[in-house]
């Protein structure tokens, strides 16, 4: 079987023309997104939002259409962390019922079965969201009814490298928590070969609802992982998230969080461990649109080799969002002279009674701590390893569910063992 190979913006647009009549959902919305994508293209560093993460390598790569998913191959399940919870598995972007164990209690609808675009995503402003809106075929639609504690759910993306060339897939996920509902979501992305995983997720956390969202990004080191997430948090709602970036060739985790009611909370924590020539980017925009909300963000970077970490954090506080409490911190450990981190915090504050702060640290390991460990007999290499893991362990403390934190700790430990080997 041969697949059509396409490159660049024209390639994606050609693909849309070919698929247009077969794609589910509102065609007018897709056409508008295609037009927005045609205009914006895949931006390079001259566009401010993409100054540090240049998408030209994505434009230069050739992508084939993903083939229909493979028959159930449970060997793939060994690749993902074991979590005692229902799971929704997407293979090369398509829902795979044989590998999945859908939740019994809550309503799950694949995007392919009922394609509805939400109101939060902004394809006219974000080129990758336009690309996704144009080509999205599948994704997870979840609805948690009022007051329900939906427990834990595992959302998995596997890229199989079975098309004989690079594939591109653009999952579209929508998750809605009605007032008072609760959900813990672990999202794992992994795979083989070169591919583009370009998910867009729209989340709505209703009044007093609580969403815990942990993402483990462990893609192939030849893959592009460009994820955009929109979350609206209503009065008293909490969105508590953590992203761990381990894999990928070029990675962007972009979050737009909108606090729309009093006493809402948005926690956008994360960590990334990069090596070789990996590039990973945390970009976030938190908009405080109501009084008494808090937002918290601590991102830790461990960079080795010639890797590059990017942090762009923006906090916007509307005039009426008094008593806003916003905090941002980006910390980087540079373990090689060729590693680089770029930090761009931005505060845009129109209210006059707010507490907003941001900070960044960049450095090597602390000489006093290192000496303390060595003076106790711990050899230099082992002492360094302890300090790096401690730096990350502190970050992972933000994940409060023990079973999920253990999965992240385990992934970090395996990453670190690979570096030492």
């Amino acid at each position: 079987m041969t697949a059509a190979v396409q490159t660049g913006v024209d390639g994606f647009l050609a693909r849309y023309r070919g698929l247009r009549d077969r794609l589910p959902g509102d065609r007018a919305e897709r056409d508008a997104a295609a037009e927005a994508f045609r205009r914006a293209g895949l931006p390079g560093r001259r566009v401010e939002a993409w100054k540090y993460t240049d998408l030209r390598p994505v434009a230069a790569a050739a992508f084939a259409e993903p083939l229909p998913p493979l028959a159930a191959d449970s060997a793939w399940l060994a690749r993902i962390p074991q979590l005692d919870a229902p799971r929704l598995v997407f293979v090369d972007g398509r829902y795979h019922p044989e590998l999945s164990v859908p939740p019994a209690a809550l309503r799950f609808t694949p995007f392919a079965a009922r394609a509805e675009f939400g109101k939060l995503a902004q394809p006219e402003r974000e080129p990758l969201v336009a690309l996704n809106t144009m080509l999205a075929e599948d994704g997870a639609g979840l609805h948690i009814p009022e007051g329900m504690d939906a427990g834990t759910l595992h959302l998995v993306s596997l890229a199989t490298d079975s098309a004989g060339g690079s594939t591109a897939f653009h999952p579209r996920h929508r998750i809605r928590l009605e007032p008072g509902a609760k959900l813990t979501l672990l999202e794992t992305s992994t795979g083989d070969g070169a591919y583009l995983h370009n998910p867009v997720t729209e989340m709505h956390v209703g009044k007093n609802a609580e969403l815990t969202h942990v993402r483990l990004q462990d893609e192939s080191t030849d893959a592009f992982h460009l994820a955009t997430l929109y979350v609206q948090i209503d009065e008293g709602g909490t969105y508590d998230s953590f992203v761990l970036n381990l894999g990928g060739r070029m990675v962007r985790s972009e979050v737009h969080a909108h606090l729309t009611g009093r006493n809402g909370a948005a926690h956008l924590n994360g960590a990334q461990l990069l090596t070789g020539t990996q590039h990973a980017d945390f970009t976030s925009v938190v908009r405080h649109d109501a009084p008494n909300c808090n937002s918290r963000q601590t991102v830790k970077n461990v960079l080795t080799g010639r890797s590059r970490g990017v942090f762009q954090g923006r906090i916007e506080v509307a005039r009426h969002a008094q008593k806003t409490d916003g905090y941002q911190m980006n910390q980087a450990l540079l373990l090689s002279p060729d590693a680089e981190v770029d930090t761009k915090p931005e505060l845009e504050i129109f209210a006059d009674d707010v507490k907003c702060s941001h900070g960044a640290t960049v450095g090597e390991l602390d000489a006093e701590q290192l000496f303390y460990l060595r003076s106790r007999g711990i050899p230099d290499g082992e002492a360094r390893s302890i300090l790096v893991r401690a730096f990350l362990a502190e970050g992972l403390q933000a994940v409060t569910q023990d079973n999920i934190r253990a999965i992240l700790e385990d992934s970090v430990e395996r990453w670190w063992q690979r570096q030492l080997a």
Partner: protein
Amino acid sequence: MLEIRGLSASINDKPILKGIDLTVPPGEVHAIMGPNGSGKSTLAYVLSGREEYAVTGGSVTFNGHDLLTMAPEERAAAGVFLAFQAPIELPGVGNANFLRTALNAIRRAHGESELDAVQFLKLARAEAKRLAMPDDMLKRNVNVGFSGGEKKRNEVLQMAILRPKLAILDETDSGLDIDALKIVADGVNELRSPEFSALVITHHQRLLDHLVPTRVHVLAGGRIIRSGGPDLALELEARGYAGLVAEAA
């Protein structure tokens, strides 16, 4: 046996130690006293291998090892232990894990088998109990959120577990109340044996009431200006350093 001959050291090209001669035979506890800025802490750091200090002259041998050519971890494996004046906080590193890693590194260096978590915890809990330390100090991150006294006791706990042959106590008594002081002194006394020696840096006679030294040395201006028996500490307590420093000048 620790033998220091003509030891000179500087930091950022500023000479601090200007020719120290000192011998500590096995089984003896020597106190080093002296005014602020006399070089006491520098001596402690140079002996334990802190790289920021440049040794500009002299030699240090310890049980036949040329200490100055050894990495800090090699010195620790040879039996040197520094109790820090300001113990370092290690956020994200559990105290028990830290102690077990250190003990096993030293055991490995000696060709001994490593202790597993269960064996280690049994040992650590017994030592912690002896030092009147609550069990949860083993579970907490190293020195993070510890009071001044707890940090000092944690140093003594490490010493009790690592069982060094030469302990250097850098003002371990500072900031301790009288009960904690006794506990610390008992911790060191517990280790005293014909194979163990200690260098106790202190400002005050108080610690030496409980930890009776074999010899007392007065360090001033980077040199040892006087040595004597335990009575010298009492004399210093009564007269202060000023007279001694003037006499030596």
